[in-house]
């Protein structure tokens, strides 16, 4: 793209500068774009991790919430910002996995337009149902669904949300087509679930754990290889007989393509250190988050994950006809 820079008032040379001394990175606060509203799971993880990273890097990490279009607005802005290490972003399974299938006019390529920094934390997905649902375990749930396919409905937090994508995936694994009921966000969806208005949902543990522990909704299984310490009584999908359904809403830090490798390495180092810190780990685990292992924390591992996620979600979502168009 040819760009002509406009020179304005005398005394201010306004060409885009890239001439920051990289050896002393970082010299000023770093902006981390969180493409969702403040207070949500991704935002919380970003703040917890960013808090510790600030201390390692010696400069504050400022969270900027740029919500919209399932997270793609914020990620688009991040992808188009200067690759000088002062703008990074927290992407997740939706923005860097499901987005290409959901948004045909997507302005970025998750696998090509970013310099991956590393995985932050994942939030496992739990299959939950209303308290009165006539089944007490996953097997009973699946049997009931197959027998009453046209009477069951599933709640989700809107096209592009984690509960939507993972819900579609669940339906395709189990081979049912329930009526989909959309909500504007997880709060209202949970509300109707508790009121026995809708039947079931698949959502992040952060959102549903309090209600499960409070006895307001039922949990059938958690879609990770191991049980979560936050919900010790909920079996894994493998234990409950549905090993094909394994999905976790991972969150990861990215920088725009072209960010110098030394800066990527510094950011990765800070991220890894925060994941090793006692306090940060505790806060993440309290949320029900899953902390990635040492091998999973490298930029290369993240790149691989992005590519495999895009490959996984695209056929699933396209088959279900789900698209934001």
């Amino acid at each position, binding site marked *: 793209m040819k760009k002509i820079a406009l020179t304005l008032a005398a005394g201010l040379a306004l060409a885009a500068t890239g001439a920051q001394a990289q050896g002393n990175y970082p010299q000023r606060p770093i902006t981390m774009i969180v493409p969702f*509203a*403040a*207070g*949500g799971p991704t*935002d*919380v993880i970003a*703040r*917890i991790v960013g*808090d510790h990273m600030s201390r390692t890097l010696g400069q504050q990490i*400022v*969270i*900027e*919430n*740029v*919500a*919209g*279009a399932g997270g793609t*607005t914020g990620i*688009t802005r991040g992808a188009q910002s200067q690759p000088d290490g002062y703008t990074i972003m927290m992407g997740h399974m939706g923005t860097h996995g499901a987005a290409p299938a*959901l948004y045909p*006019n997507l*302005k970025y390529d998750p696998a090509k337009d970013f310099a991956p920094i590393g995985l932050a934390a994942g939030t496992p997905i739990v299959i939950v149902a209303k308290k009165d649902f006539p089944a007490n375990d996953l097997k009973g749930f699946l049997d009931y669904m197959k027998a009453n396919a046209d009477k069951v*409905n599933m709640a989700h937090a*809107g*096209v*592009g949300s984690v509960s939507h994508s993972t819900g579609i995936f669940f339906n395709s694994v189990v081979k049912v087509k329930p*009526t*989909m*009921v*959309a*909500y*504007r*966000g997880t*709060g*209202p969806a*949970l*509300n*109707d679930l*508790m*009121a026995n*208005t*809708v039947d079931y949902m698949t959502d992040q543990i*952060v959102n549903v*754990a*309090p*209600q499960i*522990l*409070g*006895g*307001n909704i039922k949990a059938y299984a958690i879609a990770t290889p191991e049980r979560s310490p936050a919900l010790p009584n909920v079996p894994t999908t493998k234990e409950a007989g549905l090993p094909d359904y394994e999905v976790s809403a991972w969150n990861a830090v990215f920088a725009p393509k072209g960010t110098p490798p030394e800066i990527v390495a510094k950011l990765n180092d800070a991220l890894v250190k925060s994941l090793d810190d006692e306090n940060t780990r*505790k*806060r993440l685990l*309290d*949320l029900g988050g899953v902390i990635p292992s040492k091998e999973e924390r490298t930029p290369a591992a993240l790149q691989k994950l992005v590519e495999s996620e895009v490959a996984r979600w695209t056929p699933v979502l396209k088959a279900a006809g*789900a*698209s*934001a*168009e």
Partner: protein
Amino acid sequence: MGDLVSNLSLGFGVALSFQNLGLAFLGCLVGTLIGVLPGVGPIATIAMLLPITFGLDPVGALIMLAGIYYGAQYGGSTTAILVNIPGEATSVVTTLDGHQMARQGRAGIALGIAAIGSFFAGTVATVVIAALGAPLTSLALIFGPAEYFSLMVMGLVFAVVLARGSILKAIAMILVGVLLSTVGLDLETGEERMTLGLPFLIDGIDFAVLAMGVFGIAEILRNLDHTETRDVVRQAIGRLLPNREDFRQSYKPVLRGTFIGAILGILPGNGAVLGPFASYTIEKKLAKDPSRFGRGAIEGVAGPESANNAGAQTSFIPLLTLGIPPNAVMALMVGAMTIHGIVPGPQVMTRNPELFWGMIASMWVGNLMLLVINLPMVGMWVRLLKVPYHLMFPAILMFCCIGIYSINSLPTDVMFIGFFGIVGYLLIKFGFEPAPMLLGFVLGKLLEENLRRALILSRGSLETFIDRPVSGVLLLVAVVLLVVALLPSIRKGRDEVFTE
């Protein structure tokens, strides 16, 4: 009862600690200052200031955030009264009479009664929460999509009653507002509706952008046309605080508003937004001389402001007892609690009683702080109105731009307020009122969502709205209200709707 007293004393013990008092004060102060920024409502304020609370302990952090919330609410009312710009959906109603009072030189009285009414409502709401918090949550669970739809229909009827002038034009504006709310990605199917292919319209039009443009910028444009009338404000400043007569006129609206707001605030799904509208409607209907409304009737400020604050407080109930945020602000609080390591949910009451009761007690403390901070500031605000308009409006313009930008960091939002400003200007020239449109916009989203959801769940049967008792009652009330609203105009032939 003994339980209540001991719980409250535990709570006050926590809330009145020196540190927490200071945090409450700081929160209210900061919240007020940001909330005064045109267009910046409580949600944006809390989101912006959330990072400040990270260094604090959980109870302190939540107390400060709650303070920011009330402060921002009140700051938004201040802007609504002084410059006719609603920062939030709930302040729209305050602009109707509040700003008119300001134009008549009674800004101080409007601000004062808003503060005092809010304080009273907050006190009552605190007691309600403390005493009835847990049982009231079951009320929330009765409300399903059908009930919400009927509630929203009732809300739209309120919007008709709110209109000052021609009812036909008001209805048209409400419909336009609902139409505007459908712009964006369809919730169920993900299809784009009327987005013109523009990416920033995918999530629809932002309320703050619409409100700022249609109220704020349009108001500036209109004032620039009418040089003669705007200087009247500067001359007659008059009394700074409400006097006995004002109180006499206001105390019943405050009581009624508190009651209405408290009930509606409990409903998840943003029932609290209806509080001020309902209160205004009821006051207008009950008043001996309804034509005063829209021209500076103090009841039109006292009632809605109390409803506003009562709703703001009781909307904490679903959050504290169930862990389910009833609106976007509470969702932020959930995030804040999570960041501080507290899992919001039914166990908070039992596992962290100091947090639960401390927060409730600090609600009252926060309300008191607001009164302490704001009543002295009334004089300062009123003096601000004396600034010559040709200097004031560029400042307002800049604040509007900063305010809107800081919500989402999107320059396109800022450009849109210019667009909507022109739209608002045209609307006024054509004799339309912007308030019903804004109301239609706010209710429209909830209306459509719940309509479709109810129909999906009932598999297309329309009877579900009448079969379910609560929904049926609400619809009946709406119909009755609509008839009552239209009757005077049809009978007296004042603002003729149709010429036949």
